[in-house]
């Protein structure tokens, strides 16, 4: 039972010692991951579980042909990353992102959303 006691002690010690840093997971996005929206969005916003390091975080939005439809550099504030997009005709769009959390852990991902009636 000493191991259990030690584990409990270590667990709470670790969590309370440095509980502001971790890999940044995508919490949610607007437009929502995998969704179909009837009104074309003017921007794509990603909301992460940790604060981001702006210099090393980026987002790319492309259409079904692989052509970029985002308006360039993302705006990053705390744990949110946004990028404007050009007027989007109906179709499926792919969002690729890479971020660096404040503690220098890198994560990446991609998803699609559809614009259509």
């Amino acid at each position: 039972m000493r191991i259990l006691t030690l584990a409990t002690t270590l667990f709470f010690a670790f969590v309370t010692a440095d509980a502001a840093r971790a890999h940044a997971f995508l919490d949610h996005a607007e437009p929502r991951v995998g969704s179909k929206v009837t009104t074309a969005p003017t921007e794509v916003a990603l909301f992460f579980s940790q604060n981001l390091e702006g210099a090393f975080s980026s987002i790319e939005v492309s259409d079904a042909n692989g052509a970029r439809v985002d308006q360039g550099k993302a705006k990053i504030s705390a744990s949110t990353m946004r990028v404007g997009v050009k007027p989007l005709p109906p179709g499926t769009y792919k969002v690729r992102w890479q971020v660096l959390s404040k503690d220098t852990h890198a994560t990446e991902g991609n998803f699609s959303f559809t614009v259509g009636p």
Partner: protein
Amino acid sequence: MSRPLLHSIALAGIITVTCTSHALAHCFVGARFLPATLATDDPCVADELSLPTVAWSKTGDFPPASELDISGEISKRITENFGVSIGQNWTSIRQADGTLTQGFSNFETTFQYQVLKDREHELAILAGLIVDWGRTGSTGSGLATNYSLVTPTLYFGKGFGDLPSDFSWFRAFAVTGQVGYQIPTTSFDFTQNAFVPQQLVYGASLQYSMPYLKSEIVDLGLPDFINHLIPIVEMSLTTPVANNFGNPYTTTGTVNPGVIWVGSYFQIGLEAMIPINRDSGTGVGVLGQLHLYLDDMFPSTIGQPLFGGTSSTRKLTF
């Protein structure tokens, strides 16, 4: 030593091999996160602590004995791609007549090298060498051996996120697995008066990642707790393949359905242990684990490789 106790100790050895030799990697491959699995190992080196792993089961004896295993293991990256794990297991076996046997298994170390991480295809391959050091446990109780065990092992993991989008929800599946060849440092155990077999130690997991489903495929708006779950089925098996004179070449092991909850700093796993045959146990056992991500808890100190700097500040590609 009684035959039931010998049987129990043999099964304790199997559980030790399958539960405590499995390292604890915080395993990202591209967009895929492969959690630390409980009965098998995941295919990454990392800085992590698994404490405790607790297993309860009933042995295949007649009548069955009740067995409790409590283990801990810490993994540390020496360089970006090379890591070492050390682990220890404590076992308690209570026979039906009340006889109690308790003690430590042999001390275990695992050396692992990251052979491949293919981010685009969510593929990871790891080579390892597991060493159970003889005479480092409770040899007097029979729970540890006088000889060592050396097990070269190959691990792999593959996520299915690279499948075409037509596969939709199926892309959240991933598999991991390992195959090892266990070689004892002696061919005959004079204390047990028995040959010591060379064994194939292998296992696999099939897992469905709700975090991956939410962030990569479709956000269904499910409760946050559900979005942190990874339902999983593990299988952990051992088959004698050589130097097993006079004994059956019976495969033993368990199939473990369960679930892992993944947080930012730790994960909690719980699985049922279903023996694949009578030699593997009686009834359904339970396996649980608390697993801590040291690289996230202490990103600037012990969460870094000892040499070679950080892996996390890699150059981003766009």
